């Protein structure tokens, strides 16, 4: 709990070395860090933007890349059309830009291969980002650990990291990837097409030992609902780690 890897470093200037479109509203930025330090999958970085009038905005972005990759991290930023900051990442940022960042930051929403499993991973929308770091870490360091991901997206076009997840599902016998599409499933879609509920959770976890770890990340309402279902179903609250974002209304 007091590992050095948990401590954020001071502000540093990162070089944006790559920008890729994950979906029509999610971009991944590769940030080269002059003072890279070890992190744990699930942690995030703060980014600070400064306007010519001195106005500054800070936001937190989860790391998407695995901790095995040194020197640089990937962050994935979802476009929030009315947002103050995310349109900057979508319309302005290009390779060669420099950004002020600090990290790694974050507490219990982290998984290290020595924690073992199995892993139950539940994500909605861009809540997949820190969970992807966990899955990538597992794929490198602990393929024997069973992992089940249930990922809720609006439509197939909103699924971030889709090709990599499909590949993981097909090639890794210990990884199971489930999707649910809440708004517009494509014709012939055989997966789930509704919000995550008790029945769905029971179906995807049927063969999964419940003595491992559960990670839930997404909008606050999704996390609240999902965590409550899991506790009602008998999962130990201490084994459930959550990361919530977005307002709840009031």
């Amino acid at each position, binding site marked *: 709990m007091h590992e050095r890897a948990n401590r954020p470093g001071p502000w540093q200037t990162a070089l944006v070395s790559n920008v890729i479109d994950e979906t029509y509203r999610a971009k991944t930025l590769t940030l080269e860090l002059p003072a890279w330090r070890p992190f744990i999958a699930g942690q995030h970085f703060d980014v600070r933007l400064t*306007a010519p*009038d001195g106005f500054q*905005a800070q936001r937190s972005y989860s790391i998407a890349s695995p901790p095995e990759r040194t020197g640089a991290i990937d962050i994935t930023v979802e476009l929030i059309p009315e947002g*103050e900051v995310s349109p900057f990442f979508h319309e*302005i940022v290009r390779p060669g830009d420099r950004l*002020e960042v600090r990290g790694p930051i974050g507490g219990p929403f982290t998984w290290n291969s020595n924690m073992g499993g199995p892993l139950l991973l539940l994500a909605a929308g861009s809540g997949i980002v820190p969970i992807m770091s966990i899955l990538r870490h597992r794929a490198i360091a602990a393929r024997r650990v069973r992992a089940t991901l249930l990922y809720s997206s609006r439509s197939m076009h909103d699924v971030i990291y889709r090709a990599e997840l499909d590949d993981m599902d097909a090639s890794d016998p210990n990884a199971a990837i489930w999707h649910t599409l809440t708004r517009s499933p494509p014709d012939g879609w055989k997966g789930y097409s509704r919000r995550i509920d008790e029945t769905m959770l029971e179906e995807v976890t049927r063969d999964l030992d419940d003595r491992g770890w559960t990670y839930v990340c997404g909008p*606050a309402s999704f996390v609240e609902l999902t965590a409550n279902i899991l*506790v009602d179903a008998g999962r130990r609250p201490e084994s459930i780690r*959550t990361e919530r974002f977005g307002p709840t209304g*009031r």
Partner: protein
Amino acid sequence: MLTRGFFGRKRPQPHRPLPPGQYLENGFPVLSAGPTPRVDLDKWTFAIENQGARLAAWTWQEFLALPQTAITTDIHCVTKWSKLDTEWKGVTIDTLLQAAGMESRDGYVMAFCDGGYTTNLPLKDLIDGKAMVAHQYDGAPLRPEHGGPARLLVPHLYFWKSAKWVRGIRLMHADAPGFWEAYGYHMYGDPWKEQRYSYD
């Protein structure tokens, strides 16, 4: 460092300055590290403890029977959002300490909670009307995801110090890190000094 191409956007201007690095939020975001605990009000108590001994404890009914205080205040979350003019009702820590017959105002406390959360604070930051155990928000019982039935409210510090689902405070001679503080968050957490992380 100037960020190429960043000019900010038209945004609702807060009617008073926000601490550095904060933005105005009109919703009420929820941030918790685990599931929202189930709290049985029949078994709920708020306790003041010292060296493992209970100096005082109140059941839910006893707690509600204590003198109540309403405040309107701004809150600042370390995840960068601030919310202005939030309305709370509860029992001030002054009232609790007085009811417990406690004279000392020195040292530190560890707030402890359902779900295992803790956070550390200097006792002087809880007294003289600076903090309360709040059970109402915006005229209604505090909702579970926001820390109900009762949370600590210490609005002059970052909001992680306002521990949700609080069940008591433990007196300490020396400061010691609570839950987030052990993960590298600041021991004190003054938003106006932007004390987010351990060496800010």
